[in-house]
């Protein structure tokens, strides 16, 4: 699971959960995969991302030194930051870990690189 995907995952489908975001991420095993750097794509994606969850993911992935805690203006002029975002969001592959609902504590496991967001019938 890439950290770009993590940025969009919520537990809001659980009955009674209001926001369900951001999920508390734990990484126990990760890999790094190389992918083609496309600054235009990142710039287009940025407005859709939640920066606090980007920064939160960077902390968990031990890359917090690369990413500012608050979203800087004019990121498009900052090639180095775009490359660091590319690495964080698209090149870190979480193989094993979990995400925890901030409201209910419900755990969503990540196994073999696949996050399992599936809920039981009595949870929805």
């Amino acid at each position, binding site marked *: *699971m*890439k950290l*770009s*995907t993590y*940025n*969009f*995952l*919520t537990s*809001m*489908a659980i009955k009674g959960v209001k926001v369900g*975001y951001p999920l508390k991420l734990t990484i126990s095993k990760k890999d790094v*995969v*190389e*992918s*083609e750097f*496309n600054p*235009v*794509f990142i710039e*287009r*994606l940025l407005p*859709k991302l*939640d920066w606090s969850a980007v920064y939160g993911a960077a902390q968990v992935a031990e890359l917090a030194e690369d990413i500012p805690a608050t979203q800087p203006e004019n990121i498009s002029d900052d090639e180095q930051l775009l490359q660091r975002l590319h690495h964080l969001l*698209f*090149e870190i592959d979480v193989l094993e870990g979990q995400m925890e609902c901030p409201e209910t504590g419900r755990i969503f496991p990540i196994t*073999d*690189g*696949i*996050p*399992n*967001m*599936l*809920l039981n019938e009595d949870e*929805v």
Partner: protein
Amino acid sequence: MARLKMKKLEEYLQCVDHFEQPKILLEQYPTPPHIAACMTHHMQAQHDDIDGKFVADLGCGCGMLSIGAALLGAQLTVGFELDDAALNIYRQNVIDMELPGVDGVRVNVLHLAGSKWDNVFDTVLMNPPFGTKHNAGMDMRFLDVGMRLATGAVYSLHKTSTRTYIQKKSKEWGARGNVVAELRYNIDASYKFHKQKSKDIEVDFWRFDVSDL
């Protein structure tokens, strides 16, 4: 322009692994490589909807459409699927074919609408369950989700017999729907209850422009 010729794309897609034990309740018919190649190639060559785009594949199964999109240069593709066996094959296919920009998420597709995935993707593609067995109307519910998640275009397959209905629903949703092609969809004898060895059904390949929604 597409970065791969259709013939080459189809050759690659023939290497994609399928369901080991298809599940009838989930209508797990694999998308044939030829059809997946025609579909994804059309999306890129005619509409520039794939190369460099953020793409979702709803009910991705083993990943035939996701992999077609990734091979044609989709920057990032997320496949959503209920079934863990299918997703494990999906993941393995992606690793075997060395496609870094493809992620699989195990989730109920119907839970995606109204979440943070709304209006995130440039292009949404799907070969939905046709909803003919125990889950009537399932393809329309997938389509509804797809239209919420996409900002550019939604591509889908539906039985030709439902064309008038889909045109009407599409108008209601404010999308501009067009039938790109009529396909003869060959479903192999995947399940024991199929009496013939294989059976062709008539299927429409749709493109919905949702950029005005």
